[in-house]
């Protein structure tokens, strides 16, 4: 890995206070609990998990839309100190951009493509003239595989794949170093999905971008990720290099998730790890390990305490008391 990490996150935590009914004392929803990772330029970190596992909360914290409740976030070597309701420093904000899942909802239907692409320049690069802005927008349009005549069209004139290209172009206008991709291809058809994934990997090579790739589609993650964080109920349950995690999933949830994913090969009849039930309600978390009520390995000890994320070897960390850890490793 080259140089310093562009994101250094230590124990990022985000809690929300919600009132379940009027006048009731608000309870705390732990949407994200102690996520730690380093992300290097040109690398892709995939965040995997089911709905409600805290993937999107992580995206909101990383893009500085919300401050973490606790934990440290360092972007580009600068410690981010945010106050609730206060905008982040502009120069830092430029470094991190986000692409959303649904390209039908994330583009303003009343603006042309060129207007949308020029807007970030208008706000952040005031020294540029109108011609220069237009030129930059046109270059980016071509870079993401659209044609110059598309510049003056409105979003409704584009297909889903083309809209996602526009969203990518808009995110890249300020030359960010980090892109947070929140399910960027799950709303797209299969034949279009491959085009967008190829575009993303080309752009990563060209600009040395670091990606935080949030997805539930494991076949996509396996293909593009360097590192993986598997999350369940707001907590990272397994982290490590993608190759190793996919080759040998250790946490029972990771195993269940992998085996639940359908594989496009009718000759492969695999034994499924069957999960019973559904994720618990965040308002009534189960005691101990949050996965214990659905886990096939669960024992009495699992309900006693929250298992910490512990190293299995130098690369992989797992939060499960049933996974063997090396004896007495110094932390």
């Amino acid at each position: 890995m080259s140089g310093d990490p562009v994101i250094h996150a230590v124990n990022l935590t985000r809690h929300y206070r919600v009132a379940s009914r009027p006048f009731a004392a608000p309870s705390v929803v732990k949407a994200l609990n102690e996520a730690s990772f380093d992300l290097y330029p040109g690398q892709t970190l995939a965040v995997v998990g089911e709905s409600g596992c805290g993937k999107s909360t992580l995206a909101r914290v990383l893009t500085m839309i919300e401050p973490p409740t606790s934990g440290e976030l360092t972007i580009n070597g600068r410690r981010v100190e945010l106050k609730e309701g206060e905008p982040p420093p502009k120069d830092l904000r430029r470094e991190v951009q986000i692409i959303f899942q649904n390209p039908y909802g994330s583009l303003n239907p009343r603006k042309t493509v060129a207007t949308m692409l020029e807007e970030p320049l208008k706000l952040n690069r005031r020294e540029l003239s109108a011609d220069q802005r237009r030129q930059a927008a046109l270059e980016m349009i071509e870079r993401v595989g659209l044609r110059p005549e598309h510049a003056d069209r409105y979003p409704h004139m584009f297909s889903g794949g083309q809209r996602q290209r526009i969203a990518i172009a808009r995110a890249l206008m300020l030359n960010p170093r980090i892109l947070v991709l929140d399910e960027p291809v799950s709303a797209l058809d299969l034949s279009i999905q491959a085009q967008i994934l190829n575009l993303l990997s080309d752009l990563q090579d060209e600009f040395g971008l670091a990606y935080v790739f949030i997805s539930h589609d494991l076949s996509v993650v396996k293909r593009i990720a360097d590192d993986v964080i598997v999350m369940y109920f707001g907590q990272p349950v397994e982290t490590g290099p993608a190759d190793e995690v996919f080759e040998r999933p250790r946490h029972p949830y990771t195993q269940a998730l992998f085996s639940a994913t359908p594989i496009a090969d009718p000759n492969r009849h695999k034994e499924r790890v069957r999960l019973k039930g559904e994720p618990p309600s965040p308002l009534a978390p189960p005691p101990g390990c949050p996965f214990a009520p659905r886990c096939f390995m669960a024992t009495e000890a699992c309900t006693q305490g929250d298992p910490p994320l512990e190293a299995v070897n130098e690369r992989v960390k797992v939060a499960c008391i049933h996974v063997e850890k090396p004896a007495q490793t110094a932390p």
Partner: protein
Amino acid sequence: MALLDIAGLDVSFRTTGGLFPAVEDAHIAIDPGEVLAIVGESGSGKSVSMLATMGLLPWTAEVGAEKMLFDGQDLSRLTSRQRRRIVGGEMSMIFQEPMSSLNPCFTVGTQIDEMLRQHRGGSRKERRERTLELLAQVGIPDPAKRIGAYPHQLSGGMSQRVMIAMAISCNPRLLIADEPTTALDVTIQAQILDLLLQLQQDTGMALILITHDMGVVAETAQRVIVQYAGHQVERQDVKSLFAHPRHPYTEALLSALPERAGEQSRLPTIPGVVPGLHDRPSGCLFHPRCRHATEHCRQVAPRAEAGDPARTLCHYPL
């Protein structure tokens, strides 16, 4: 005799821009106890052909067919009253969005009960017992409590189970599942697919699964119909489809799957997009995106050969 036998089904929609052909020349035949998957991208007409069978299309649709038989009865000649007796009873459907397909104003018990009242009758007590039995059958814990729940109190997976309970309430002989797991998480998807297959095996009903997910097809179906832009481009047995796709579209679609792409650095893609209302190409509809297209493909639309077991809609099947 096939349970559902449809030949030459055409569906078009009257739009302000003219008549848009959504499905052309569709053939669907399914025997009792069979699992058939219809797979295609969005806009390929896979839902429309099944909605036409159910008679659920809006008035802007024009439906025509050479043959449209369910259990020997001609669906196209039935009065709407006769048709309503079949739809929901002997032939029923599960929709994609469980959250928005259930009526938010009524409890799930009432909504299941409505099906039983329409199709089977019986006393209130009998129907309640049957409803509880159905909720238990689809794996909803504590049915006696959940029978009074409103849809917003249930998760996506639970709502889909309620939809399934509704669909199987009258022991249908044909169940059509339109993207039943697309809105759900993978571990819940696995549970729902297991449940559907289990019910299918227990009752011997025929199951038509509409999906865009090749993984789901591979794990559940026996036979597959691949649709592209309203045409059935290939009909095959599931194993031979994945081993030897005959239509270039099927081949391209399978190789675009990340898990089949292997170690190569770039994913193989299908250039271009599915044609819309105004840019339907001449000749074969797939030719602008096809690697193997020739001049002949650009001019002449292919016809499925009667002798071809795969019924491939291509001049040069692979």
